[in-house]
């Protein structure tokens, strides 16, 4: 932060001195680089001077050695450094002939061989760095696709795809951990063989029940050292997954948050940036240029829309406000009742799960899939209703998207949670042969599979509307739009299921990866082929923070569910034979040498907790106070900055009035300081 602001100071100085150079371009042969005394005298400028000197003069000094500063010593005030003598000729904004003329005045010889070699080396080094950076980013998959999507649909849709890619990485990491901690050792130290029917693949019963997919498989095998056994590894694997996910997601959220905060309203240069720095002059490909055009256009339109909305909002009368709040209240009640209804539906469907005996295989399949179907159906329909509702509430577009997101995420997580609670309750009286954890894992597995199947619906819609353009369905769905919130929700939901289920079904992350990769291609297809670009765009930065925040929420939910796990007795899986998670660690600790044992016991005791808490408090306090101090410093720097703007303005008006009064012959000359200070 400090660095940014101090650079600003340099820039202001720089701007100021450039004020004159606009005149110098108009006159023919003046290429002076002026500085004005006021800014030189400002303490903040003097503080930042060394940096500038280094930049500006390093090259020049070496080239010109002790070049005479006498080339032109015009009306500069006393003590003003003669910038011109330090400038290499290349830095002059003149055509080649002009520079030659300038050099003739300065009588400087050509640069030597050594200097030229040095300079080209520096250039080459820079180029190599740039190229290395490009190669590194080239390693990321789907970059080209993302670029294409961004050009066509804007940053928001791209943020969705980046989020998707991030989830794939996350799941890949999970898979590696599970492979290392759980599957590898278990497979290595045990061997069994069995086989069953195809229907079991969908239901997750039969051979799958005994396969590495589920909890029950991981029975303690021959690997049975006190501190290196299957239960312990299993537990360590799952815990590592959770901690790593937590760290990664929190980091991502905070980075995003910081970014949004920095780009917030306090820096009001946004539109000018978009216009003045909008075009990327590197673009050569005509199609890339077309993409860039549409990207800029979308961005500008979004900005204008948000601005006109806030204008409208400011003009609301009191009566309108009251009416609006009443409307919002009623709509919120509707939302809550809808949520309640959805939860009832899920409860009823999970009731049916218990009555699966005595039916044909098809009925069995349908009944088994009833809860996932209900959940998916509810999750498919209600968010759209929420979206309609939020459009009545007259929020700005971004807020609209965010409220819909929050409501829908609540629906998704809560419905999943309720379903899990029912499954837990209904399974308490299962016999010993029917592993309860497997049952639970199976539900998660079914949810995952059904989600995967549901991603194909978008594809189906496209195909129907292309083959039968007059059919009812095609006319109903019309031209699809890519609704970012709902697609993000689907992703978060998949990830939540994967997190919740990973304990009971360790291969769920692998299934998750497959699902996500397929989702990527399906979504890419449906975005590029089936969807029209939104007329209204929404901002990516704030929304992507929300994406990660939702992910964090779902992680917390999974953690909450797991917190009940260690207290349940199990009859299968790694914690067989009356072992709970606690006695496994206990066994390990008691096998260690006594000194280590004592240390560990001390670390786990209350006696250690107190100093730990104290230390944490101290560290936190110091961070908080440092944060406050920084905040204050930022405020002060902002004041300085606005002072500077004011001075620039004053000076500009002064200059202008002077120019109007005396149109002196020395048009291109700087106003000397003593005159200015009058």
């Amino acid at each position, binding site marked *: 932060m400090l660095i940014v602001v101090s650079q*600003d100071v340099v*820039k*202001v100085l*720089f*701007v*100021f001195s*450039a*004020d004159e150079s*606009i005149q110098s*371009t108009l006159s023919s042969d003046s290429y002076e680089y002026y500085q004005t005394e006021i800014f030189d005298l400002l303490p903040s400028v003097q503080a930042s001077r060394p940096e500038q000197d280094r930049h500006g003069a390093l090259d020049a000094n070496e080239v010109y050695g002790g070049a005479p500063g006498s080339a032109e010593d015009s009306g500069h005030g006393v003590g003003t450094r003669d910038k011109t003598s330090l400038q*290499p*000729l*290349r830095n002059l*904004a003149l*055509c*080649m*002939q002009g520079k030659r003329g300038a*050099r003739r005045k300065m009588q400087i010889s*050509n*640069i030597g061989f050594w200097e*030229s070699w040095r*300079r*080209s080396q520096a*250039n*080459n080094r*820079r180029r190599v760095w*740039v190229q290395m950076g490009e190669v590194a980013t080239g390693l990321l998959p789907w970059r080209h696709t993302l670029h294409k999507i961004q050009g066509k649909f804007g940053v928001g849709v791209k943020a969705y795809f980046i989020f998707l890619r991030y989830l794939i990485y996350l799941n890949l990491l999970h898979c590696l951990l599970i492979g290392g901690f759980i599957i590898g050792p278990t497979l290595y130290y045990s061997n069994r063989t069995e086989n069953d029917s195809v229907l079991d693949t969908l239901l997750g019963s039969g051979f799958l029940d005994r396969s590495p997919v589920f909890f029950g498989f991981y029975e303690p095998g021959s690997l049975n050292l006190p501190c290196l056994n299957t239960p312990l590894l299993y537990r360590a694997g799952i815990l590592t997954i959770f901690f790593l996910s937590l760290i990664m997601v929190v980091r991502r959220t905070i980075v995003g948050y910081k970014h949004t905060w920095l780009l917030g309203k306090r*820096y*009001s*240069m*946004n*539109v*000018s*940036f978009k*216009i*003045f*720095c*909008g*075009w*990327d*002059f*590197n*673009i*050569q*490909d*005509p199609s890339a*240029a*077309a993409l860039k*055009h*549409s990207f*800029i*256009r979308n961005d*500008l339109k979004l900005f*204008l829309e948000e601005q*006109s909305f806030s204008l409208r909002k400011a003009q609301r009368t009191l009566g309108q406000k009251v009416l609006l709040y009443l409307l919002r209240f009623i709509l919120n009640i509707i939302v809550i009742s809808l949520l309640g209804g959805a939860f009832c539906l899920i409860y009823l469907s999970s009731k049916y799960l218990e009555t699966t005996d005595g039916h044909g295989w098809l009925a069995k399949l349908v009944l088994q899939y009833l809860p996932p179907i209900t959940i998916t159906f509810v999750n498919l329909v209600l968010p759209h209703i929420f979206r309609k509702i939020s459009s009545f509430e007259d929020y700005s577009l971004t807020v609209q998207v965010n409220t819909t997101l929050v409501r829908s995420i609540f629906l998704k997580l809560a419905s999943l949670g309720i379903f899990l609670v029912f499954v837990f309750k209904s399974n308490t009286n299962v016999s010993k042969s029917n592993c309860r954890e497997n049952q639970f894992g199976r539900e998660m597995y079914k949810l995952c599979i059904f989600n995967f199947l549901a991603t194909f619906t978008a594809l189906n819609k496209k195909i129907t509307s292309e083959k039968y353009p007059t059919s009812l369905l095609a006319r109903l769905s019309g031209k699809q739009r890519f609704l970012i919130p709902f697609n993000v929700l689907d992703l978060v939901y998949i990830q939540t299921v994967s997190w919740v289920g990973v304990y009971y079904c360790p291969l769920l992350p692998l299934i998750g990866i497959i699902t996500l990769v397929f989702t990527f291609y399906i979504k890419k297809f449906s975005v590029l082929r089936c969807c029209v670009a939104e007329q209204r765009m929404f901002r990516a930065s704030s929304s992507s923070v929300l994406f990660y925040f939702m992910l964090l929420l779902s992680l917390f939910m999974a953690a909450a569910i797991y917190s009940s796990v260690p207290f349940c007795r199990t009859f299968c899986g790694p914690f067989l034979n009356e072992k709970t998670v606690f006695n496994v660690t206990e066994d390990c600790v008691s096998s260690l040498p006594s000194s280590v044992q004592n240390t560990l016991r001390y670390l786990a005791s209350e006696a250690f907790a107190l100093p730990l808490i104290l230390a944490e408090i101290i560290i936190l306090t110091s961070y908080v106070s440092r944060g406050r101090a920084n905040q204050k410093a930022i405020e002060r720097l902002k004041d300085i900055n606005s002072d500077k*703007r004011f001075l620039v*303005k004053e000076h*500009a*008006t002064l200059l*202008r009035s002077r120019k109007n009064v005396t149109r002196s012959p020395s048009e291109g000359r700087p106003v000397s300081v003593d005159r200015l200070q009058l």
Partner: protein
Amino acid sequence: MGSTSSQLDKDALSEYQELTFLTKQEIILAHERFSAMLPQEYKGATNIRLPMEKILEMPELKSNPFNKRICHVFSTSQPNDGSLTFEDFLDLLSAFSEAATMEIKSHYAFRIFDSDNDGTLGREDLEKMVTLLTGDSKDTSLNGEEMGQLINNILEESDIDKDGTVNLSEFQHVISRSPDFVSSFKIVL
């Protein structure tokens, strides 16, 4: 590296190196590219003007919306028809090179954006710029009201002395805060 006729003599090369931000290799490459565009009978001549239409055919400039302005800014012809000599061409590449300073880049950017050459960016200049940036397809371009709103926003942010136009210093003030101007204002052969 090319035929003997297209080679630059040593003095000229080191002079160009001194006067531009380009390296030796870049100057040689630029010379090759430039002489490749010359008609057959003038091969090797250094002080030939290449008409703007020829320059615009280069892939580096072809899809750039500001390509005509760029030619006009860097052309030294009298009257200005956008045609470039080899030295003008080098000036162009120097301003757009990686090594060029922020000051040079923003100076030329300002002149490129100043389509009426009056030394300030007035409303018309800004409007023209926005139109070039957003592309000229009829259905999607901004309507008059939106354009007015946008221009007002730009002026409100950048026009510090409130004279209704953005002058060079104000322009550079804005540009200097943008982190990616230097990397995007770049044309490399």
